[in-house]
């Protein structure tokens, strides 16, 4: 008699579920990805990386990979959308089909439509819209890989792309989310933490004007907790703001240093 070897059952291709981890934060207050509660994911930003766009920027924040491009100010097409006294800001937040675990259809989802709106409303206060009547400024945000907090990272690069395009701005807009996970208040939630946690609060800030331009929340927070999470998110935004400024200067500082060395 011989034993028929057991065939490994084939996982269904669809509906492969990530096993939900038991705990997202361990007893030493260390998160699954090794971060402290109030620690940002590692952030890398490049500005002016697309040749055709008037302005562009790219961010890698943790596993997020997001690209932003700006075209404008330019003539509005279709013409009837032009406003006589200001520019029209249009914004499109879109996720690539391969950006998430289960392929996402390229057609704009309701979530993308809502996010396009709130992102536009987050960056518009930073632009002097009255300077260029009868024009449009188009902002495109493409999420190439998503791991939670994409609308915030998207705002961060969109703001840099606008600055890169030479569009006059009041301030850069930096964005970051904070929330509550496993009972702890944390900064910069990744996808697992957002889905498994108790609250997520994305926020965008123009630092020098103390102006909050994006504020959303879903979850469950007492008013006290809310105040703490709000403060944490603002702290995160200010850290991102520093990275933004450095990235913007980097293009020019490198040249200056090279020249001074000669």
């Amino acid at each position, binding site marked *: 008699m011989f034993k028929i070897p057991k065939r490994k059952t084939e996982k269904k291709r669809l509906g492969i579920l990530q096993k939900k981890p038991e705990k997202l934060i361990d007893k030493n207050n260390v998160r699954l990805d090794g971060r402290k509660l109030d620690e940002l994911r590692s952030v890398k930003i490049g500005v002016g990386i697309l040749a055709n766009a008037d302005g562009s920027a790219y961010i890698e924040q943790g596993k997020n990979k997001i690209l932003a491009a700006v075209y404008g100010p330019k003539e509005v097409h279709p013409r009837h959308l032009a406003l006589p006294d200001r520019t029209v800001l249009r914004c499109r937040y879109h996720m690539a089909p391969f950006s998430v675990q289960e392929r996402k259809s390229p057609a704009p989802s309701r979530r993308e439509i809502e996010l396009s709106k709130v992102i536009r409303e987050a960056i518009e206060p930073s632009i002097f819209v009255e300077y260029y009547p009868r024009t449009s400024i188009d902002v495109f945000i493409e999420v190439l890989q998503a791991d939670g907090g994409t609308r915030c990272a998207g705002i961060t690069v969109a703001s840099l792309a606008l600055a890169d395009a030479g569009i006059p701005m009041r301030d850069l807009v930096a964005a970051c989310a904070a929330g509550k996970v496993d009972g702890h208040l944390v900064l910069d939630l990744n996808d697992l933490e957002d889905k498994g946690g108790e609250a997520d609060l994305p926020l965008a800030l123009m630092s020098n004007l103390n102006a909050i331009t994006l504020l959303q929340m879903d*979850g*469950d927070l007492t008013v006290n907790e809310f105040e703490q999470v709000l403060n944490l998110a603002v702290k995160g935004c200010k850290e991102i703001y520093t990275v933004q400024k450095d990235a913007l200067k980097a293009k020019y500082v490198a040249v200056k240093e090279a020249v001074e060395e000669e």
Partner: protein
Amino acid sequence: MTPSITIAKVKQRRIAELISHGKRLDERGLNDYREVQLEVGIIERAEGSARVRLGKTEVMVGIKIEIGTPFPDVPNEGVLTVNTELVPLASPKFEPGPPDENAIELARVVDRGIRESKAISMEKLCITPGKKVFIVFVDVYVLNHDGNLIDASAMAALAALLNTKIFNYEIKDDEIEIKLGYTQLPMADYPIAVTFAKINGKLVVDPWLVEEQVMDVRLTMTIDKDGKICAMQKGGYGYFSMEQVLEAAKIAQQKAEELRKIVVGE
């Protein structure tokens, strides 16, 4: 898209002036809601329904219950889906067509309030785990737009859900057999949305249409029955300071309590 201001500058200035003196054009205080009128059970074909009149803003919500498959990651829970129609008859600004970004935002904010507060006991909507659950369709129909669609829609949705009855059933040989009688939709929380507008640096609750055209930004906070915040959404082209946001949170808790009595206490 960018809204263009359609009321005369003189009127805008008057509204802003009044508000800096703590008064509004319709004589309300900064923290006063318009009158709320509520009717439930008006559409017999729907499993639940309600109509809210908030001042002249009118929103109707119909609830339909169907049987469907659960999401794979939550096989024991029912499904909630919220849709909003800004029907053209409600306002000269609404055009026929699929939901635009405003309709979608409205639907998602109302949805968030219900979902995050766990207002509906979703596990009790499970029929056969992993296979069959109840799907709750919340359809928000805006009938007249006179400002603050979010709060009116959220109230109407809550009232409609409280009014909803699901038919009784029995599972025989893997088939669902409908029995006599109904059960109330199992509810565990009663979320209320409170929306503020910022005009001339001051916060006012329940902005009506004229104020919405003058405001530069709005902030909605949805509060559950324990006074906790379960959803928040900033909208519009302006911004808030941190102090204003915290001030709004405190006022929202108060106002939510008052409004909840109207919706639940009826």
